[in-house]
Protein backbone atom coordinates (compact mmCIF):
# COMPACT_ATOMS: atom_id res chain seq x y z
CA UNK A 1 0.00 0.00 0.00
CA UNK A 2 2.78 2.41 0.91
CA UNK A 3 4.58 1.55 -2.31
CA UNK A 4 1.63 2.15 -4.58
CA UNK A 5 0.77 5.61 -3.28
CA UNK A 6 3.54 7.63 -4.97
CA UNK A 7 3.14 5.66 -8.17
CA UNK A 8 -0.58 6.32 -8.18
CA UNK A 9 0.03 9.99 -7.50
CA UNK A 10 2.42 10.22 -10.41
CA UNK A 11 -0.01 8.47 -12.70
CA UNK A 12 -2.85 10.81 -11.76
CA UNK A 13 -0.79 13.95 -12.22
CA UNK A 14 0.27 12.59 -15.60
CA UNK A 15 3.97 13.47 -15.55
CA UNK A 16 7.11 11.59 -14.60
CA UNK A 17 7.76 11.51 -10.89
CA UNK A 18 10.22 14.36 -10.53
CA UNK A 19 12.29 14.50 -7.38
CA UNK A 20 11.10 17.77 -5.82
CA UNK A 21 7.34 17.49 -6.20
CA UNK A 22 7.72 13.97 -4.84
CA UNK A 23 9.38 15.19 -1.71
CA UNK A 24 6.79 17.93 -1.26
CA UNK A 25 4.08 15.36 -1.75
CA UNK A 26 5.67 13.18 0.90
CA UNK A 27 5.60 16.09 3.33
CA UNK A 28 2.04 16.87 2.36
CA UNK A 29 1.05 13.34 3.34
CA UNK A 30 3.04 13.58 6.55
CA UNK A 31 1.69 16.99 7.57
CA UNK A 32 -1.60 15.77 9.09
CA UNK A 33 0.38 13.46 11.34
CA UNK A 34 2.69 16.05 12.82
CA UNK A 35 0.44 18.01 15.23
CA UNK A 36 -0.62 14.86 17.07
CA UNK A 37 2.90 13.45 17.13
CA UNK A 38 4.54 16.63 18.35
CA UNK A 39 1.87 17.35 20.95
CA UNK A 40 2.05 13.87 22.42
CA UNK A 41 5.84 13.76 22.54
CA UNK A 42 6.09 17.15 24.23
CA UNK A 43 3.41 16.51 26.84
CA UNK A 44 3.92 12.86 27.74
CA UNK A 45 7.36 11.78 26.52
CA UNK A 46 9.65 14.67 27.43
CA UNK A 47 8.68 14.36 31.13
CA UNK A 48 10.16 10.85 31.13
CA UNK A 49 13.49 12.34 30.08
CA UNK A 50 13.16 14.90 32.86
CA UNK A 51 12.46 12.07 35.32
CA UNK A 52 15.61 10.32 34.18
CA UNK A 53 17.64 13.48 34.83
CA UNK A 54 16.00 14.09 38.22
CA UNK A 55 16.71 10.53 39.28
CA UNK A 56 20.41 11.35 39.44
CA UNK A 57 19.88 14.34 41.76
CA UNK A 58 19.88 14.39 45.52
CA UNK A 59 16.96 16.77 45.89
CA UNK A 60 14.44 17.13 48.69
CA UNK A 61 11.87 19.79 47.80
CA UNK A 62 11.90 21.04 51.40
CA UNK A 63 15.57 22.02 50.97
CA UNK A 64 15.56 23.44 47.44
CA UNK A 65 19.05 24.99 47.73
CA UNK A 66 20.64 21.74 48.72
CA UNK A 67 20.37 20.12 45.31
CA UNK A 68 23.32 18.20 43.90
CA UNK A 69 24.36 15.39 41.59
CA UNK A 70 24.05 12.04 43.31
CA UNK A 71 25.01 9.51 40.66
CA UNK A 72 23.28 6.21 41.22
CA UNK A 73 22.79 6.84 44.95
CA UNK A 74 18.99 7.17 44.56
CA UNK A 75 18.80 3.83 42.78
CA UNK A 76 20.89 2.27 45.53
CA UNK A 77 18.51 3.70 48.11
CA UNK A 78 15.39 2.60 46.24
CA UNK A 79 16.69 -0.94 45.90
CA UNK A 80 17.94 -1.18 49.49
CA UNK A 81 15.08 0.57 51.33
CA UNK A 82 12.71 -2.10 52.66
CA UNK A 83 9.69 0.13 51.98
CA UNK A 84 10.49 0.66 48.33
CA UNK A 85 11.64 -2.88 47.76
CA UNK A 86 8.45 -4.02 49.44
CA UNK A 87 6.42 -1.92 47.03
CA UNK A 88 8.13 -3.55 44.05
CA UNK A 89 7.10 -6.94 45.44
CA UNK A 90 3.57 -5.72 46.21
CA UNK A 91 3.21 -4.41 42.67
CA UNK A 92 4.22 -7.77 41.21
CA UNK A 93 1.99 -9.75 43.55
CA UNK A 94 -1.00 -7.47 43.03
CA UNK A 95 -0.64 -7.43 39.25
CA UNK A 96 -0.11 -11.18 38.85
CA UNK A 97 -3.00 -12.12 41.14
CA UNK A 98 -5.48 -9.67 39.68
CA UNK A 99 -4.56 -10.46 36.08
CA UNK A 100 -4.66 -14.24 36.44
CA UNK A 101 -7.84 -14.46 38.51
CA UNK A 102 -9.75 -11.99 36.38
CA UNK A 103 -8.50 -13.73 33.25
CA UNK A 104 -9.80 -17.07 34.50
CA UNK A 105 -13.16 -15.64 35.56
CA UNK A 106 -13.34 -13.68 32.32
CA UNK A 107 -12.74 -16.87 30.34
CA UNK A 108 -15.52 -18.72 32.16
CA UNK A 109 -17.93 -15.84 31.62
CA UNK A 110 -16.94 -15.48 27.97
CA UNK A 111 -17.57 -19.20 27.40
CA UNK A 112 -21.00 -18.86 29.05
CA UNK A 113 -21.83 -15.83 26.95
CA UNK A 114 -20.62 -17.43 23.73
CA UNK A 115 -23.70 -19.68 23.77
CA UNK A 116 -27.12 -18.58 22.68
CA UNK A 117 -29.61 -18.17 25.49
CA UNK A 118 -32.53 -15.95 26.40
CA UNK A 119 -31.36 -12.50 27.46
CA UNK A 120 -27.74 -12.92 26.40
CA UNK A 121 -27.38 -9.23 25.50
CA UNK A 122 -28.84 -8.22 28.88
CA UNK A 123 -26.41 -10.42 30.80
CA UNK A 124 -23.50 -9.01 28.79
CA UNK A 125 -24.63 -5.50 29.72
CA UNK A 126 -24.91 -6.46 33.41
CA UNK A 127 -21.41 -7.91 33.33
CA UNK A 128 -19.88 -4.78 31.83
CA UNK A 129 -21.34 -2.54 34.55
CA UNK A 130 -18.53 -3.05 37.14
CA UNK A 131 -16.03 -1.79 34.59
CA UNK A 132 -18.10 1.35 34.06
CA UNK A 133 -18.03 2.67 37.60
CA UNK A 134 -15.53 5.47 38.12
CA UNK A 135 -12.57 3.56 39.66
CA UNK A 136 -12.51 5.57 42.86
CA UNK A 137 -16.29 5.19 43.20
CA UNK A 138 -15.91 1.42 42.89
CA UNK A 139 -13.12 1.45 45.48
CA UNK A 140 -15.28 3.50 47.87
CA UNK A 141 -18.11 1.06 47.37
CA UNK A 142 -15.88 -1.87 48.34
CA UNK A 143 -14.39 -0.03 51.28
CA UNK A 144 -17.52 1.32 52.94
CA UNK A 145 -20.45 -0.61 51.56
CA UNK A 146 -19.02 -4.14 51.37
CA UNK A 147 -15.95 -4.42 53.60
CA UNK A 148 -16.98 -2.24 56.55
CA UNK A 149 -16.77 -4.49 59.63
CA UNK A 150 -19.83 -3.01 61.37
CA UNK A 151 -22.41 -2.43 58.65
CA UNK A 152 -20.81 -3.70 55.43
CA UNK A 153 -22.79 -6.06 53.21
CA UNK A 154 -20.37 -8.98 53.64
CA UNK A 155 -20.62 -9.02 57.42
CA UNK A 156 -24.32 -8.25 57.12
CA UNK A 157 -24.81 -11.41 55.07
CA UNK A 158 -22.63 -13.43 57.48
CA UNK A 159 -24.74 -12.11 60.35
CA UNK A 160 -28.01 -12.86 58.58
CA UNK A 161 -26.88 -16.43 57.86
CA UNK A 162 -24.95 -17.26 61.02
CA UNK A 163 -27.01 -15.39 63.60
CA UNK A 164 -25.50 -13.40 66.46
CA UNK A 165 -22.49 -15.67 66.85
CA UNK A 166 -21.37 -15.24 63.23
CA UNK A 167 -17.78 -14.25 62.50
CA UNK A 168 -17.48 -10.56 61.66
CA UNK A 169 -14.00 -10.09 60.18
CA UNK A 170 -12.47 -6.65 59.67
CA UNK A 171 -11.71 -7.45 56.04
CA UNK A 172 -9.38 -4.60 55.18
CA UNK A 173 -7.16 -4.82 58.27
CA UNK A 174 -7.08 -8.60 58.37
CA UNK A 175 -6.43 -9.20 54.67
CA UNK A 176 -5.45 -5.84 53.18
CA UNK A 177 -3.85 -7.01 49.96
CA UNK A 178 -6.61 -9.53 49.33
CA UNK A 179 -9.19 -6.77 49.81
CA UNK A 180 -7.50 -4.56 47.19
CA UNK A 181 -7.19 -7.54 44.87
CA UNK A 182 -10.86 -8.49 45.25
CA UNK A 183 -11.98 -4.98 44.32
CA UNK A 184 -9.68 -4.91 41.29
CA UNK A 185 -10.62 -8.41 40.14
CA UNK A 186 -14.28 -7.41 40.24
CA UNK A 187 -13.56 -4.36 38.04
CA UNK A 188 -11.20 -6.09 35.60
CA UNK A 189 -13.03 -9.37 34.97
CA UNK A 190 -15.43 -7.65 32.53
CA UNK A 191 -12.44 -6.32 30.57
CA UNK A 192 -11.00 -9.83 30.20
CA UNK A 193 -14.44 -11.19 29.38
CA UNK A 194 -14.91 -8.66 26.56
CA UNK A 195 -11.53 -9.43 24.97
CA UNK A 196 -11.98 -13.20 25.22
CA UNK A 197 -15.57 -13.03 23.97
CA UNK A 198 -14.34 -11.14 20.92
CA UNK A 199 -11.77 -13.89 20.48
CA UNK A 200 -14.36 -16.66 20.78
CA UNK A 201 -16.61 -14.99 18.26
CA UNK A 202 -13.82 -14.67 15.72
CA UNK A 203 -13.38 -18.46 15.79
CA UNK A 204 -14.24 -20.23 12.56
CA UNK A 205 -17.69 -21.81 13.19
CA UNK A 206 -17.20 -24.29 10.33
CA UNK A 207 -14.12 -25.71 11.98
CA UNK A 208 -16.06 -26.38 15.18
CA UNK A 209 -18.94 -27.84 13.20
CA UNK A 210 -16.58 -30.14 11.31
CA UNK A 211 -14.92 -31.31 14.52
CA UNK A 212 -18.32 -32.07 16.05
CA UNK A 213 -19.30 -34.09 13.00
CA UNK A 214 -16.14 -36.09 13.44
CA UNK A 215 -17.39 -36.87 16.94
CA UNK A 216 -15.29 -34.52 19.01
CA UNK A 217 -16.53 -33.98 22.56
CA UNK A 218 -17.05 -30.51 24.05
CA UNK A 219 -13.81 -30.83 25.94
CA UNK A 220 -11.91 -31.87 22.81
CA UNK A 221 -13.31 -28.94 20.87
CA UNK A 222 -12.29 -26.63 23.71
CA UNK A 223 -8.80 -28.06 24.16
CA UNK A 224 -7.88 -28.50 20.51
CA UNK A 225 -9.71 -25.72 18.69
CA UNK A 226 -10.94 -23.03 21.05
CA UNK A 227 -7.93 -22.76 23.33
CA UNK A 228 -5.27 -22.61 20.57
CA UNK A 229 -7.38 -19.99 18.79
CA UNK A 230 -7.78 -18.03 22.02
CA UNK A 231 -4.09 -18.16 22.85
CA UNK A 232 -3.26 -14.76 21.49
CA UNK A 233 -6.38 -13.19 22.98
CA UNK A 234 -5.38 -14.65 26.36
CA UNK A 235 -1.90 -13.20 25.90
CA UNK A 236 -3.39 -9.87 24.97
CA UNK A 237 -5.60 -9.91 28.06
CA UNK A 238 -2.66 -10.75 30.30
CA UNK A 239 -0.41 -8.11 28.82
CA UNK A 240 -2.88 -5.23 28.54
CA UNK A 241 -4.27 -6.11 31.97
CA UNK A 242 -0.74 -6.04 33.38
CA UNK A 243 0.04 -2.73 31.72
CA UNK A 244 -3.08 -1.16 33.22
CA UNK A 245 -2.90 -2.80 36.67
CA UNK A 246 0.80 -2.13 37.25
CA UNK A 247 -0.20 1.53 36.98
CA UNK A 248 -3.13 1.24 39.36
CA UNK A 249 -3.33 4.03 41.87
CA UNK A 250 -6.99 4.57 42.72
CA UNK A 251 -7.75 1.29 44.50
CA UNK A 252 -4.66 1.32 46.72
CA UNK A 253 -5.11 5.02 47.47
CA UNK A 254 -8.76 4.58 48.45
CA UNK A 255 -8.94 1.22 50.19
CA UNK A 256 -5.80 1.24 52.32
CA UNK A 257 -3.99 4.53 51.56
CA UNK A 258 -0.93 2.36 50.97
CA UNK A 259 -0.95 1.05 54.53
CA UNK A 260 -0.58 -2.53 55.77
CA UNK A 261 1.89 -3.50 53.09
CA UNK A 262 -0.34 -2.67 50.14
CA UNK A 263 1.63 0.29 48.74
CA UNK A 264 2.44 -0.49 45.12
CA UNK A 265 4.99 1.43 43.08
CA UNK A 266 2.68 4.13 41.69
CA UNK A 267 1.39 4.85 45.19
CA UNK A 268 4.92 4.85 46.63
CA UNK A 269 6.15 7.25 43.95
CA UNK A 270 3.21 9.55 44.64
CA UNK A 271 3.92 9.42 48.37
CA UNK A 272 7.68 9.84 48.05
CA UNK A 273 7.37 13.10 46.23
CA UNK A 274 3.99 14.45 47.32
CA UNK A 275 4.32 13.78 51.03
CA UNK A 276 8.01 13.13 51.66
CA UNK A 277 9.15 15.64 49.00
CA UNK A 278 12.04 13.37 47.99
CA UNK A 279 12.15 14.34 44.33
CA UNK A 280 15.30 12.43 43.44
CA UNK A 281 14.17 9.21 45.10
CA UNK A 282 10.70 9.38 43.54
CA UNK A 283 12.27 9.82 40.11
CA UNK A 284 14.56 6.84 40.56
CA UNK A 285 11.56 4.72 41.54
CA UNK A 286 9.78 6.11 38.46
CA UNK A 287 12.62 5.06 36.18
CA UNK A 288 12.47 1.55 37.65
CA UNK A 289 8.74 1.35 36.88
CA UNK A 290 9.41 2.53 33.34
CA UNK A 291 12.04 -0.15 32.82
CA UNK A 292 9.64 -2.82 34.10
CA UNK A 293 6.90 -1.48 31.83
CA UNK A 294 9.17 -1.47 28.79
CA UNK A 295 9.82 -5.18 29.34
CA UNK A 296 6.06 -5.82 29.59
CA UNK A 297 5.32 -3.54 26.66
CA UNK A 298 7.78 -5.31 24.38
CA UNK A 299 5.79 -8.51 24.75
CA UNK A 300 2.47 -6.70 24.56
CA UNK A 301 3.44 -4.92 21.35
CA UNK A 302 4.49 -8.20 19.79
CA UNK A 303 1.07 -9.74 20.48
CA UNK A 304 -0.80 -6.65 19.28
CA UNK A 305 1.28 -6.54 16.13
CA UNK A 306 0.64 -10.19 15.26
CA UNK A 307 -3.13 -9.70 15.69
CA UNK A 308 -2.90 -6.46 13.74
CA UNK A 309 -1.03 -7.95 10.77
CA UNK A 310 -3.55 -10.75 10.59
CA UNK A 311 -6.34 -8.18 10.55
CA UNK A 312 -4.67 -6.06 7.84
CA UNK A 313 -3.95 -9.00 5.56
CA UNK A 314 -7.52 -10.28 5.89
Amino acid at each position, binding site marked *: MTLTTPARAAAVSGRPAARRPNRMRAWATRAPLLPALVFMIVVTQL*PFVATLVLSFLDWNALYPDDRRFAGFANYGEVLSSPDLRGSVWTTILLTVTVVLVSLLLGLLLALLLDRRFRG*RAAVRTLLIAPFLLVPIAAALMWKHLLFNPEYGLFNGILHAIGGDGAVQPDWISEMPLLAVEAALIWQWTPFMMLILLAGLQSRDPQLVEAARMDGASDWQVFAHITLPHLRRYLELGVLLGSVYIVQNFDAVFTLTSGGLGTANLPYTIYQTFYQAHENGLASAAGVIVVIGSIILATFALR*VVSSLFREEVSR
Partner: protein
Amino acid sequence: MATVATTAPRQSRPHGRFRGAALGVVAWLAGLVFVLPILWMVLTSFHSEADAATNPPSVAAALTLDGYREFFGLTGGASPWPSLINSMTASLVSTLLTLLLALPAAYALSIRPVKKWTDVLFFFLSTKMLPLVAALLPIYLFAKNTGLLDNIWALVILYTAMNLPIAVWMMQSFLSEVPVAIIEAARIDGARLPTVLGRVVAPIALPGIAATALICFIFSWNELMFARVLTGVVAETAPVFLTTFITSQGLFLAKVCAASLVISLPVLAAGFAAQDKLVQGLSLGAVK
Protein backbone atom coordinates in the same frame (compact mmCIF):
# COMPACT_ATOMS: atom_id res chain seq x y z
CA MET B 1 -23.20 -36.19 4.13
CA ALA B 2 -26.66 -34.72 4.39
CA THR B 3 -27.91 -37.59 6.51
CA VAL B 4 -25.00 -37.24 8.90
CA ALA B 5 -25.64 -33.54 9.24
CA THR B 6 -29.28 -34.03 10.15
CA THR B 7 -28.93 -37.02 12.45
CA ALA B 8 -25.88 -36.01 14.47
CA PRO B 9 -27.40 -32.97 16.20
CA ARG B 10 -30.71 -34.76 16.71
CA GLN B 11 -29.09 -37.46 18.80
CA SER B 12 -27.70 -35.00 21.29
CA ARG B 13 -30.62 -32.61 21.24
CA PRO B 14 -32.74 -33.48 24.32
CA HIS B 15 -29.65 -33.71 26.48
CA GLY B 16 -28.12 -30.61 24.80
CA ARG B 17 -31.22 -28.50 25.19
CA PHE B 18 -31.41 -29.16 28.92
CA ARG B 19 -27.76 -28.39 29.37
CA GLY B 20 -28.05 -25.26 27.23
CA ALA B 21 -30.86 -23.98 29.42
CA ALA B 22 -28.93 -24.79 32.59
CA LEU B 23 -25.89 -22.91 31.32
CA GLY B 24 -28.13 -19.98 30.42
CA VAL B 25 -29.31 -19.90 34.04
CA VAL B 26 -25.70 -20.06 35.25
CA ALA B 27 -24.83 -17.12 32.98
CA TRP B 28 -27.75 -15.12 34.39
CA LEU B 29 -26.67 -15.93 37.95
CA ALA B 30 -23.09 -14.89 37.21
CA GLY B 31 -24.30 -11.61 35.72
CA LEU B 32 -26.46 -10.94 38.78
CA VAL B 33 -23.67 -11.75 41.24
CA PHE B 34 -21.37 -9.33 39.44
CA VAL B 35 -23.90 -6.54 39.40
CA LEU B 36 -25.24 -7.19 42.92
CA PRO B 37 -22.86 -4.76 44.68
CA ILE B 38 -23.99 -2.01 42.32
CA LEU B 39 -27.67 -2.82 42.88
CA TRP B 40 -27.01 -2.79 46.62
CA MET B 41 -25.33 0.60 46.21
CA VAL B 42 -28.36 1.95 44.33
CA LEU B 43 -30.71 0.66 47.03
CA THR B 44 -28.54 2.04 49.85
CA SER B 45 -28.36 5.45 48.20
CA PHE B 46 -32.15 5.69 48.62
CA HIS B 47 -32.11 4.63 52.27
CA SER B 48 -31.83 6.92 55.28
CA GLU B 49 -28.39 6.93 56.92
CA ALA B 50 -29.75 5.03 59.92
CA ASP B 51 -31.27 2.29 57.75
CA ALA B 52 -28.13 2.11 55.59
CA ALA B 53 -25.91 1.24 58.56
CA THR B 54 -27.76 -1.68 60.11
CA ASN B 55 -26.39 -5.18 60.56
CA PRO B 56 -27.98 -7.41 59.29
CA PRO B 57 -28.84 -5.11 56.38
CA SER B 58 -32.36 -3.64 56.13
CA VAL B 59 -33.35 -4.52 52.59
CA ALA B 60 -36.94 -3.32 52.80
CA ALA B 61 -36.34 -0.03 54.63
CA ALA B 62 -38.28 3.08 53.57
CA LEU B 63 -36.92 4.93 50.54
CA THR B 64 -35.79 8.54 50.72
CA LEU B 65 -33.81 11.06 48.68
CA ASP B 66 -31.88 12.29 51.72
CA GLY B 67 -28.59 10.78 50.53
CA TYR B 68 -28.84 12.73 47.28
CA ARG B 69 -29.86 15.92 49.11
CA GLU B 70 -26.82 15.53 51.36
CA PHE B 71 -24.51 14.92 48.41
CA PHE B 72 -25.72 17.94 46.45
CA GLY B 73 -25.07 20.12 49.50
CA LEU B 74 -28.71 21.05 50.00
CA THR B 75 -28.34 20.45 53.74
CA GLY B 76 -25.15 22.45 54.09
CA GLY B 77 -21.66 21.16 53.34
CA ALA B 78 -19.62 21.45 50.17
CA SER B 79 -21.50 21.51 46.87
CA PRO B 80 -20.25 19.02 44.28
CA TRP B 81 -21.25 21.24 41.37
CA PRO B 82 -17.91 23.06 40.88
CA SER B 83 -16.11 19.71 40.72
CA LEU B 84 -18.69 18.24 38.34
CA ILE B 85 -18.38 21.29 36.09
CA ASN B 86 -14.58 21.01 36.19
CA SER B 87 -14.77 17.35 35.23
CA MET B 88 -17.16 18.13 32.40
CA THR B 89 -14.86 20.88 31.13
CA ALA B 90 -11.73 18.76 31.32
CA SER B 91 -13.38 15.71 29.74
CA LEU B 92 -15.34 17.45 26.98
CA VAL B 93 -12.65 19.91 25.91
CA SER B 94 -9.88 17.32 26.00
CA THR B 95 -12.01 14.86 24.03
CA LEU B 96 -12.67 17.52 21.40
CA LEU B 97 -8.97 18.40 21.17
CA THR B 98 -8.05 14.73 20.99
CA LEU B 99 -10.39 14.23 18.05
CA LEU B 100 -9.08 17.34 16.29
CA LEU B 101 -5.50 16.07 16.56
CA ALA B 102 -6.21 12.37 16.04
CA LEU B 103 -8.43 12.62 12.95
CA PRO B 104 -5.81 14.07 10.59
CA ALA B 105 -3.21 11.71 12.04
CA ALA B 106 -5.46 8.71 11.46
CA TYR B 107 -6.12 9.96 7.92
CA ALA B 108 -2.36 9.99 7.28
CA LEU B 109 -2.13 6.43 8.62
CA SER B 110 -5.00 4.89 6.70
CA ILE B 111 -6.56 6.66 3.73
CA ARG B 112 -3.41 8.34 2.43
CA PRO B 113 -0.79 6.47 4.40
CA VAL B 114 2.70 7.81 4.89
CA LYS B 115 5.62 5.48 4.33
CA LYS B 116 6.17 3.07 7.23
CA TRP B 117 2.74 3.89 8.62
CA THR B 118 2.66 0.76 10.77
CA ASP B 119 5.83 1.88 12.54
CA VAL B 120 4.27 5.24 13.33
CA LEU B 121 1.13 3.53 14.57
CA PHE B 122 3.14 1.30 16.87
CA PHE B 123 5.13 4.24 18.15
CA PHE B 124 1.84 5.81 19.27
CA LEU B 125 0.86 2.59 20.98
CA SER B 126 4.19 2.11 22.75
CA THR B 127 3.87 5.51 24.44
CA LYS B 128 0.59 4.38 25.98
CA MET B 129 2.34 1.48 27.69
CA LEU B 130 4.66 3.66 29.76
CA PRO B 131 3.32 4.36 33.24
CA LEU B 132 2.37 8.02 33.46
CA VAL B 133 3.14 8.00 37.18
CA ALA B 134 6.80 8.22 36.19
CA ALA B 135 6.04 11.54 34.48
CA LEU B 136 4.08 12.89 37.43
CA LEU B 137 6.87 14.80 39.14
CA PRO B 138 8.24 16.71 36.11
CA ILE B 139 4.69 17.60 35.08
CA TYR B 140 3.93 18.80 38.61
CA LEU B 141 7.13 20.89 38.71
CA PHE B 142 6.36 22.35 35.29
CA ALA B 143 2.82 23.26 36.29
CA LYS B 144 4.06 24.79 39.52
CA ASN B 145 6.61 26.98 37.77
CA THR B 146 4.24 28.17 35.05
CA GLY B 147 1.27 28.93 37.31
CA LEU B 148 -0.78 26.05 35.90
CA LEU B 149 -1.22 24.45 39.30
CA ASP B 150 -4.89 24.25 40.30
CA ASN B 151 -5.83 25.25 36.76
CA ILE B 152 -8.27 23.04 34.85
CA TRP B 153 -6.46 23.73 31.56
CA ALA B 154 -3.43 21.81 32.81
CA LEU B 155 -5.68 18.75 33.00
CA VAL B 156 -7.20 19.49 29.59
CA ILE B 157 -3.73 19.44 27.99
CA LEU B 158 -2.69 16.33 29.89
CA TYR B 159 -5.81 14.33 29.16
CA THR B 160 -5.59 15.24 25.49
CA ALA B 161 -2.07 13.86 25.28
CA MET B 162 -2.97 10.86 27.43
CA ASN B 163 -5.81 9.81 25.12
CA LEU B 164 -4.18 10.62 21.78
CA PRO B 165 -2.57 7.19 21.22
CA ILE B 166 -5.85 5.35 21.83
CA ALA B 167 -7.77 7.78 19.66
CA VAL B 168 -5.27 7.51 16.81
CA TRP B 169 -5.38 3.71 16.96
CA MET B 170 -9.14 3.45 17.07
CA MET B 171 -9.68 6.07 14.40
CA GLN B 172 -7.07 4.47 12.16
CA SER B 173 -8.94 1.19 12.30
CA PHE B 174 -12.28 2.88 11.59
CA LEU B 175 -10.97 4.98 8.71
CA SER B 176 -9.28 1.99 7.09
CA GLU B 177 -12.73 0.41 6.86
CA VAL B 178 -13.65 3.05 4.28
CA PRO B 179 -13.11 1.36 0.89
CA VAL B 180 -10.41 3.09 -1.12
CA ALA B 181 -12.39 2.43 -4.31
CA ILE B 182 -15.21 4.75 -3.18
CA ILE B 183 -12.76 7.55 -2.46
CA GLU B 184 -11.06 7.06 -5.85
CA ALA B 185 -14.40 7.07 -7.62
CA ALA B 186 -15.43 10.32 -5.95
CA ARG B 187 -12.12 11.92 -6.92
CA ILE B 188 -12.43 10.80 -10.51
CA ASP B 189 -15.89 12.37 -10.56
CA GLY B 190 -14.11 15.62 -9.71
CA ALA B 191 -14.87 15.87 -5.98
CA ARG B 192 -12.32 17.90 -4.02
CA LEU B 193 -10.78 16.71 -0.77
CA PRO B 194 -13.19 18.47 1.65
CA THR B 195 -16.14 17.08 -0.29
CA VAL B 196 -14.67 13.59 -0.25
CA LEU B 197 -14.08 13.79 3.49
CA GLY B 198 -17.48 15.26 4.27
CA ARG B 199 -19.66 13.28 1.89
CA VAL B 200 -17.85 9.95 1.55
CA VAL B 201 -15.56 9.31 4.49
CA ALA B 202 -17.53 10.92 7.33
CA PRO B 203 -20.79 8.97 6.96
CA ILE B 204 -18.92 5.65 7.05
CA ALA B 205 -16.51 6.56 9.83
CA LEU B 206 -18.92 8.54 12.03
CA PRO B 207 -20.06 5.72 14.35
CA GLY B 208 -16.41 4.85 14.98
CA ILE B 209 -15.50 8.46 15.66
CA ALA B 210 -18.37 8.72 18.13
CA ALA B 211 -17.22 5.58 19.95
CA THR B 212 -13.68 6.95 20.11
CA ALA B 213 -14.98 10.18 21.60
CA LEU B 214 -16.98 8.30 24.24
CA ILE B 215 -13.95 6.24 25.28
CA CYS B 216 -11.71 9.32 25.53
CA PHE B 217 -14.42 10.94 27.62
CA ILE B 218 -14.51 7.96 30.00
CA PHE B 219 -10.75 7.90 30.52
CA SER B 220 -10.61 11.65 31.18
CA TRP B 221 -13.57 11.56 33.55
CA ASN B 222 -12.10 8.66 35.57
CA GLU B 223 -8.59 10.02 35.97
CA LEU B 224 -7.64 10.59 39.60
CA MET B 225 -3.87 10.68 40.14
CA PHE B 226 -3.00 13.73 38.06
CA ALA B 227 -6.13 15.55 39.13
CA ARG B 228 -5.28 14.89 42.77
CA VAL B 229 -1.71 16.19 42.42
CA LEU B 230 -2.31 19.09 40.03
CA THR B 231 -5.55 20.57 41.34
CA GLY B 232 -6.62 22.09 44.63
CA VAL B 233 -9.65 24.08 45.64
CA VAL B 234 -10.47 25.74 42.32
CA ALA B 235 -9.91 23.09 39.67
CA GLU B 236 -10.88 20.03 41.71
CA THR B 237 -12.54 17.35 39.56
CA ALA B 238 -15.31 14.93 40.53
CA PRO B 239 -12.99 11.98 41.38
CA VAL B 240 -10.98 14.33 43.61
CA PHE B 241 -14.24 15.37 45.27
CA LEU B 242 -14.83 11.68 46.02
CA THR B 243 -11.50 11.44 47.87
CA THR B 244 -13.14 13.33 50.76
CA PHE B 245 -15.12 10.13 51.39
CA ILE B 246 -12.04 7.93 51.84
CA THR B 247 -12.04 8.26 55.63
CA SER B 248 -15.30 7.35 57.34
CA GLN B 249 -17.30 10.25 58.71
CA GLY B 250 -19.91 8.72 61.00
CA LEU B 251 -23.14 7.80 59.29
CA PHE B 252 -22.52 8.68 55.67
CA LEU B 253 -23.16 5.49 53.70
CA ALA B 254 -26.21 6.73 51.77
CA LYS B 255 -24.34 9.91 50.89
CA VAL B 256 -21.27 7.98 49.63
CA CYS B 257 -23.49 5.76 47.51
CA ALA B 258 -25.37 8.71 46.05
CA ALA B 259 -22.10 10.53 45.33
CA SER B 260 -20.45 7.48 43.72
CA LEU B 261 -23.49 6.80 41.55
CA VAL B 262 -24.04 10.38 40.41
CA ILE B 263 -20.37 10.77 39.53
CA SER B 264 -20.32 7.40 37.71
CA LEU B 265 -23.48 8.18 35.75
CA PRO B 266 -21.77 9.92 32.80
CA VAL B 267 -19.34 7.01 32.46
CA LEU B 268 -22.09 4.40 32.66
CA ALA B 269 -24.05 6.26 29.99
CA ALA B 270 -21.04 6.71 27.72
CA GLY B 271 -19.90 3.13 28.27
CA PHE B 272 -23.24 1.56 27.44
CA ALA B 273 -23.54 3.81 24.39
CA ALA B 274 -20.12 2.68 23.18
CA GLN B 275 -20.60 -0.94 24.29
CA ASP B 276 -19.91 -2.56 20.95
CA LYS B 277 -16.71 -0.63 20.33
CA LEU B 278 -15.53 -0.75 23.94
CA VAL B 279 -13.20 -3.73 23.45
CA GLN B 280 -11.65 -2.17 20.41
CA GLY B 281 -10.82 0.96 22.38
CA LEU B 282 -9.60 -0.79 25.49
CA SER B 283 -7.47 -3.26 23.58
CA LEU B 284 -6.04 -0.29 21.66
CA GLY B 285 -7.56 -1.49 18.42
CA ALA B 286 -6.03 -4.96 18.57
CA VAL B 287 -9.40 -6.70 18.90
CA LYS B 288 -12.34 -5.88 16.70
